[in-house]
C-alpha cells in the first residue's frame, strides 16, 4: 500500500500566543512550532500499516516552522520519502489553499491511502483533511481511530470514533483520504541518535509548486484572548450552604439531567 501522510506545523501552545500589529492575525514570528498532534498519529498509523502490509510511506509538509526536524524524525521512524513544499515567507495558507498545494505537489505520487490529522488547532476557516480529499477528488471520512488492511485487496477497515467510546467500523474502498484522530497505538518514540543519523543520511524532495492562493471566503476581523479568571471563586458557609450553591451552579450549566 502506498501511503501519503501530510504533517503540519502548528503554534506550540505552551508559549503564550501573541496577536500581531494588525490585530487580526497571530504573530507568527513570535510563535514556536511543533508537529500537529493528529498528524503525528496519522504518521504512526501509516507506519503501522506499512509494517503490516508492506508498501511505502511518503511524508509531505510545507516549509514552515520546525519542519526539518519533523521530517527527519519521520524518516528516522521509517518514512521512505520526505517532501518539503516551499512556501513564501510569512504566508500561512488557509486549509483550502494548503489543500491545493499538497494536491499539486503529490500529483505524480502513487497514493492508495492519504492520511491527514482530522484537526489542527490553528484551523478556523476550513478543515484540511476533507479539503485535500476534494482537491484530489477522493472519498473521505474523518475522526478515525485505527485503520487496518481490509480483507479484500484495495480496501481498509477504519474505526470512526463516536461519543461514549462507541466506534463505527467502516469498510473503505481505496484510494481514499482518512482524517485521523488516533492510530492503533500512540506515536512511537525514536531515539535522538536515529534522528541525528537521519539528518546525515536523508534528503528532502523539494518540488516547485505553483500556488494560486485561493482567497479566503471569510475574513477575520480581530483576534482576542479568551476572558479567564485566575483563581477559583470561593464558596462559603456551612456544608449544606455550599452543597446547595454547587447544585445550583450545576443546574445552571445544564449538568443536572
Amino acid at each position, binding site marked *: 500500500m502506498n501511503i501519503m501522510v501530510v504533517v503540519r506545523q502548528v*503554534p506550540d*501552545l505552551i508559549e503564550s*500566543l501573541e*496577536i500581531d500589529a494588525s490585530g487580526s492575525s497571530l504573530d507568527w514570528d513570535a510563535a514556536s512550532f511543533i508537529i500537529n498532534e493528529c498528524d503525528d498519529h496519522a504518521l504512526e498509523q501509516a507506519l503501522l500499516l506499512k509494517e503490516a502490509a508492506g508498501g511505502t510511506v511518503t511524508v509531505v509538509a510545507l516549509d514552515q516552522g520546525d519542519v526539518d526536524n519533523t521530517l527527519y524524525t519521520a524518516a528516522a521512524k521509517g518514512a521512505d520519502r520526505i517532501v518539503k513544499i516551499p512556501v513564501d515567507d510569512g504566508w500561512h495558507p488557509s486549509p483550502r489553499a494548503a489543500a491545493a498545494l499538497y494536491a499539486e505537489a503529490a500529483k505524480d505520487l502513487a497514493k492508495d491511502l492519504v492520511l491527514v490529522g*482530522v484537526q489542527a*488547532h*490553528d484551523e*478556523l*476557516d*476550513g*478543515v484540511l*483533511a*476533507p479539503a485535500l480529499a476534494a482537491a484530489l477528488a477522493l*472519498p*473521505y*471520512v*474523518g*475522526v478515525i481511530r485505527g485503520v487496518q488492511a481490509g480483507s479484500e485487496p484495495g480496501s481498509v477497515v477504519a474505526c*470512526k*470514533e*463516536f*461519543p461514549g*467510546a*462507541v*466506534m*463505527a*467500523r*467502516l*469498510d*473503505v*474502498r481505496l484510494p*481514499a483520504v482518512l*482524517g485521523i484522530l488516533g492510530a492503533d497505538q500512540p506515536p512511537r518514540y525514536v531515539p535522538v541518535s536515529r534522528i541525528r543519523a537521519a539528518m546525515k543520511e536523508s534528503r528532502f524532495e523539494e518540488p516547485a509548486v505553483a500556488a494560486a492562493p485561493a482567497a479566503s471566503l*471569510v*475574513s*477575520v*476581523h480581530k*483576534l*482576542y484572548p*479568551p476572558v479567564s479568571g485566575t*483563581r*477559583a*471563586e*470561593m*464558596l*462559603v458557609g456551612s*456544608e*449544606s450552604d*455550599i*452543597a446547595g450553591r*454547587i*447544585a*445550583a*451552579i*450545576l*443546574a445552571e*450549566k445544564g*449538568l*443536572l*439531567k
Partner: protein
Amino acid sequence: MSAHDVLVVAEVQRQALADITLELLAAARGVAEAGGGQVICLVLSADGTPFVPALAPADRIVLVNDPQLADYAPDPFVAAAFEVVAAEQPRAVLVAGTSVGWDLAPLLASRLQAPLVTGCKSVTADGPGLVVDVSFCGGKMMAEVAVGQSPAVLMIMPGSYRAATAAGAARVETREPASPLPAGAVRFREWVLPEAGDVDITQQDVLVAVGRGIQQKDNVELAEQLAQALGGAVCASRPAVDQGWLPATRQVGKSGMTVRPKLYLALGVSGAPEHLEGMDGSELIIAVNTDPKAPIFDAAHYGAEVDALDLLPALVEAVGAKKG
C-alpha cells in the same frame, strides 16, 4: 424558503436525537429572527418521526427518511443534506461539532462552494452577513470572523448555547431524495460498543476525582454515589491509586490519563502540577480541599475550603433535590 432562513442539521446518534440539536436550534433562532426568517431543522435518519415532538422549537421540521441513513456513511448523508440545502438556500447551515459534523460540515461546504467556519461559540446576524465568534488554538485564542457569502456552513461547539425551549411553528414535512442516495466508497459495517463494566474516564462528561483527602478506601463509595447522581464516574489522583483505593485505569495526571470533561469535581485533591496537567482543560472545575493554599484552587473555577468527607453527603442530597 427564504434567504433569511437558518437550517440546522439535527444530530442523530444511533437512532437517538442528541441534545446538542436543541443548542443548534437556539443558535439558529437568534440569527433567523434578526432577518425575519425561519428555523428549519433537517433530520437525516431511517425514520425521524419519533424526534418531532422534541424539535418543537423549529419552524419547519424536514424529515428525510431513508434506510441508507440508518447508521452512518458520509456519502448518503452529504448527498441528502446537499439536496435540501441547495433547494432551501438558507443564509446559514448549522452543524454540531461532533463526529458526524466533522465529516458533514466540510464535505457539504465543499459541495456548496460555501464558506466553512469551525469552533463557533456564537453566531450573530450582521446585516446580510454573519459575525461568528470562534475559539481556536486549544481554547487559548478567540477570533471574530465575518462571513459575507451565503449559505455559510458553521460548526457549532457543544456547550456554546443553552437548549432552545420556546416553541416554533413546528410544521413537519417529509421528503424523498430526488434520486437514490449514493452508497459511496466508505460503507458502514457495524457498531462496536464498549465492553460493559469498563469505565473509560476520558469519555465521561462528569468526573468526581478523589485524592488523599478522602482518607480511606471506604469513602470512595460516597464519591461513587455522587458520580452516579451526576451521570459520571469516579477518577483519582495518583496517591489514591497508589493506595489501592481505585485501579490505575482511573488515574488522572501525568502518569495517568488526560481528561477534559464538562465537570471535574475535585475532592481532597491538592492539585500538584502532575495532576493539573491531566485535567486543567476541563470545562468546569470545582475543588474542595481543607488547605486554602492548595494549588488546585488556582486551576478551579469554584472552590470550597471544607472537608470533602463532610461535604459529600450534603452534596449528594442537594443534587438529588435539585434534579427533582
